[in-house]
């Protein structure tokens, strides 16, 4: 962020910054998540949103259930082959720029469901930005992943003007 220069425009404090920085700052602190909740992790995601852990401290509490209004997909839970086309379709419906957090080992790698019906990692179907281990991850671990994603958004070269 820029420098505060008092005295300008009749004594009102003014903040200077570049458009780039302002955009990055706004983008990373106002993520609109869409929960693609399937299993146990979705229950724990409810805990993340709930009063104790409170995801709104990170500006991501406006959970949207329409992919068209969201820019962060949280895949929480096991994704099976039967569900894979659905996941792909919903991801495609989100507008760019968009990010994905893979919450829990099932979404990340299939977890201990190494069998005929479980997709062995959602990255076979959609790109993933942050993987969160745990079965399910504790809410603090998820919040850590969210902060990692914020760092990533901040330094994402694809989003820069130049």
């Amino acid at each position, binding site marked *: 962020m820029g420098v505060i220069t008092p005295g300008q425009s009749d004594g009102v404090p003014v903040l200077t910054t570049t458009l780039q920085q302002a955009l990055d700052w706004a983008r990373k602190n106002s993520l609109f998540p869409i929960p693609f909740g399937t299993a146990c992790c979705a229950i724990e995601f409810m805990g993340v949103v709930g009063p104790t852990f409170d995801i709104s401290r990170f500006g991501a509490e406006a959970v949207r259930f329409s992919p068209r209004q969201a820019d962060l997909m949280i895949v929480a839970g*096991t994704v099976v*082959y*039967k569900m*894979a086309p*659905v996941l792909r379709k919903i991801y495609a419906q989100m507008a760019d720029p968009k990010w994905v957090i893979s919450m829990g080992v099932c979404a990340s790698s299939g977890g201990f469901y*190494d069998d*005929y019906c479980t997709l062995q990692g959602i990255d076979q179907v959609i790109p993933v930005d942050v993987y969160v281990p745990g079965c399910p991850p504790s809410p603090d671990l998820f919040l850590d992943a969210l902060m990692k994603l914020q760092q990533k958004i901040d330094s994402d070269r694809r989003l820069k003007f130049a």
Partner: protein
Amino acid sequence: MATLDVERVRALIGEDLLGDRSSHGDTAFVVRRPGIRRIAQALRDDATLQFDMLMDLAGADRSLLPPKDRIERFEVVYNLYSLWNGWRLRLCVPVPEADPFVDSVHDIWKAADWAEREAWDMFGIRFNGHPNLKRILCHHEFVGHPLRKDYDRTRGQWLSQLDTLEDELEMAHDRERETLRAQGNDPADSNIGERMLLNIGPSHPVTHGTLRVLVELEGEIIRTAIPEIGYLHRGFEKCAEKGSWNNVVPYASRLNYVSSLANDVAYVKAVEKLCGIEVPDRCKYIRVIVTELARIMDHVVCNAANLVDLGALTNFWYLFTVREKIYTIVEKLTGIRLTTAYTRVGGLSHDLYEGFEDEVRAMLKEIVPFLQDVIGLVKKNRIFMERTVGIGKISAEDAIAYGWTGPCLRACGVPLDARKRDGYYFYDTFDFDVPVGENGDSFDRIMVRFEEVFQSIRIIEQALDRLPGGPVNTGNNKFTLPPKKELFRDIEPLMNHFMIVMFGTPVPAGETYDSFEVPNGELGFYLISDGKGKPYRMRVRPPCFYVYQPYVHIIKNGMMADMAAILGSLNIVAGELDR
């Protein structure tokens, strides 16, 4: 309570009786395939026996069992329950591989409809006369039958696109046309086929999970509803066959992940029945306490989510505070908040931590005001009542025919509670009530859950008062790992430890069915062991599977908005529904 009149059952089965497989206190008969419909009808309609509930129907592939236990490659297993007598009966029907056909019993017990589809999906057993025998858990492009012993566990199959469900829609239209004709109306005058189609799910906020319902709307009224499940079918029963008996505990935790502790207990109780071992009293009391804690969590989360569906968000924050208070204790006890895996065959993973009793007592006192606040907010609330009273009704007869158990059945006025009836783990000595509803509507289901939370608090307080000292594991070192201290001192514990770790718990060969009252109803496990340290076949009887089956009939001709409210009150957990 009188015991089951076995001779009467034998007489009813008559010449179709192939053998007696009763063991472990279960009554089980092997019967000939052609007679199954006659026997089913006779058992259900007999005035004394009254086997009015089909608790579970499952297939089994016995191809790798020793020849003396194998009549044919496949078997269909019917677990029956007589509600008013409290009797259980198991029927096994051998089915040859070359000609895998059995007569369907879906019109005798409505619960059989989906269960037979599952047996077809998993084993390729066909049911004559079933109206809609298509895959239920695997996707429609799947080839083969995954629970057969010759299907490689890790061979996944991709799905290119979702089932359009057009075939089932067409069948529903045909049924409707027939009804119209029977009433003397011309189907051509109706708007069948012209109504608005709306696909809800499998990823939709109102379904709280991965359920899909295709509905046909006339204005806001649902005229046709087609369900599809299996979007969270993650192969519990196949995975259970890969490791030792104790390796299944973490999988069991993830069946109903809202109340993992109760599932843990249910599973090991079934295995202990098969082993014929008794756990110490302290272990039993601890299992009661954690089960009841799980019940509180489950009911609280269910009602919280349901109230959000109705637009009452405040209650969600209040009730989740209750949940977090319990989670804090669960995390301290088991090391994880949600998926606990706290039990082991023959005991527990570890004893309670110091100060557990006082913390639980204090926590129980703290949560009561939150619950009372929420009940005060909703119980006489006009909006809440208009959305729930008389909505989503089901009659007790239908609920029984569909195999409902748990709070949903009790809301219909049927006081079936395995804790009271079977009295395992000293439940018969605790002073608690079984709340029942009157109308079987959403309101009753929600209120039954709230009342059960208070009853669970009573049970926990009594169990804490009586909690004895002593070990939590059975002293039988064949089944439980010896204490670490002895392991380094003596050769015998070291050998026992080695045997259990390398070759698994030595569960003797045999089979049994055991039931346990989890928050959602009866969670049953039908286990077959071949004595080799691994489960040979594990069938779980999920309460949700049977509760969800008539859902589309309940929502039919109701408002679109009530669909979500009814679903929430049934408490369908996808992990348990699809396994």
